[in-house]
């Protein structure tokens, strides 16, 4: 049937059709990512509704396997966690009271100065679900089910909630422990269309963000270990500042920070945070935790940091897109 139809148009033989399609593919390859974004936006809607169920299954499976691999906690660790939870609960109550006072103060201040300029970062959190992943394993991307219709725009930062109770269930920890819910940045929106968006994870090879390293060390002393020789150095005002860095994804499961001066004494367990200057997220927000500090052989005096993402990216399901509602500012 198809053969007889094409036979009526002498030009459109299967050979010619293939040649035209190959040329089209070459053109789209050369034109660049702008056209690719438009094409993806025009076609991705077809996958989102049905991909949701499949992603739910795969996320649950990944979460399950990561829980099986986790080490079991000792009774003492459980007790420590319980104590820490209690302390945090009290801290949360204190901050909640302070926050109420702050809101009242802000409301009265805004009545006085509200006409001049916004006093703080204002944003909407758009809750979204991950409904798919990239079809090829070369990139770390996720497809979410909220797009331009919900206010999601390209460049918006995306966070998640990391609930420690998820992990504890598998470790048979007694119930009624408080859930810690720190938010961590998981990536940003690189493509957005009406009913969905593409999220690039912080571990993607193409991810690059201006960040700071916040050193979580004893404010009085710091232990620096160099090639087995331990020495104690006292921290000074100069060395305890946040360290501005550029963080990139390594294309696997970590982030990399290069060219950090050894003078900053960055060590494992220090925090990598977003910078407060960004329009899309003008707050210090957790990106990850420094896992390893290695010297850079080609540039003596500088080290490279391997950073573990703060969020569990393997089992990413619910995310929150930060949509600024303040007037636009220039990105640094």
């Amino acid at each position, binding site marked *: 049937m198809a053969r007889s139809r094409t036979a009526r148009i002498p030009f459109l033989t299967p050979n010619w059709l293939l040649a035209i399609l190959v040329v089209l*593919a070459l053109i789209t390859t050369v034109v660049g990512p702008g056209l690719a974004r438009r094409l993806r936006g025009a076609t991705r809607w077809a996958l989102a509704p049905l991909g949701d169920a499949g992603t739910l299954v795969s996320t649950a499976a990944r979460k399950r396997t990561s829980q099986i691999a986790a080490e079991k906690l000792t009774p003492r660790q459980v007790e420590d966690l319980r104590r820490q939870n209690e302390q945090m609960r009290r801290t949360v109550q204190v901050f909640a009271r302070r926050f109420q006072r702050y809101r009242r103060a802000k409301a009265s201040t805004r009545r006085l100065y509200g006409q001049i300029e916004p006093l703080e970062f204002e944003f909407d959190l758009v809750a979204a679900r991950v409904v798919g992943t990239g079809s090829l394993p070369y990139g770390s991307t996720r497809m979410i089910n909220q797009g331009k219709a919900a206010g999601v725009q390209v460049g918006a930062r995306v966070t998640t909630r990391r609930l420690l109770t998820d992990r504890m269930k598998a470790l048979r920890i007694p119930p009624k422990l408080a859930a810690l819910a720190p938010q961590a940045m998981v990536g940003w929106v690189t493509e957005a269309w009406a009913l969905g968006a593409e999220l690039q994870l912080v571990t993607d090879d193409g991810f690059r963000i201006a960040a700071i390293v916040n050193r979580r060390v004893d404010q009085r002393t710091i232990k620096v270990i160099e090639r087995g020789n331990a020495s104690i150095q006292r921290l000074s005002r100069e060395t305890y500042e946040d360290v501005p860095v550029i963080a990139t994804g390594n294309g696997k499961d970590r982030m990399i920070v290069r060219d950090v001066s050894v003078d900053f004494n960055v060590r494992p367990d220090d925090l990598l945070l977003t910078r407060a200057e960004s329009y899309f997220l003008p707050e210090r927000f957790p990106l990850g935790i420094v896992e390893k500090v290695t010297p850079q052989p080609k540039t003596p005096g500088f080290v490279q940091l391997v950073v573990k993402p703060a969020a569990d990216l393997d089992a990413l399901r619910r995310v929150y897109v930060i949509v600024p509602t303040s007037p636009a500012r220039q990105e640094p």
Partner: protein
Amino acid sequence: MHWVGVIILGYVLVLIQTSLGAVLTIDTRMLGPIRPDLVAHLAVFLALQSRSGVEAALAAWGLGLALDLTSSGGMSDSTVVGPMALGYVLATAAVFRIRDLFYKDRPLPQVFFAAVFCLIAHGTWITLQQLRVGGDEGMAGYGQLWLKVVALAIYSSALMPPAGWLYQRIAPVVLDTTPSRTHPSRKR
């Protein structure tokens, strides 16, 4: 070839690859996550069983484009559309030409054909994307990407025998399985 069947099956495979594909992911410390290319199995099957190489290449172009449209990231903030369509066409042409060298219905040759297909298709993809990105730092990661392609080819080809067995069962959905007419010159 039954194009409606190919389109539906291709859609289902892309859907599985983008949602349930994470279940088949193997996390490696050196190369990162490795996932099989399930769509390649269908393209290899069509290249092995189709009567017309051009039709197999047309189907491969569509399947490759579907992968291009459902993946981004990895080399820059967004990869381009088209390289995988070209890669699939090239790989199909290669498999179609060498398919008569082996018994194509046996599992081991199918593993070989799937490995060749994935190496050509994904090798084309990373090469074209890398050429577009360029830069010394990008080229430094090119070798690493090839290692990932090899790992993906091994993983995908290992899954080819069960996929080939499945496609044999549903061959009438995607292929014209009516006996071919003998060429007039051979009629005696």
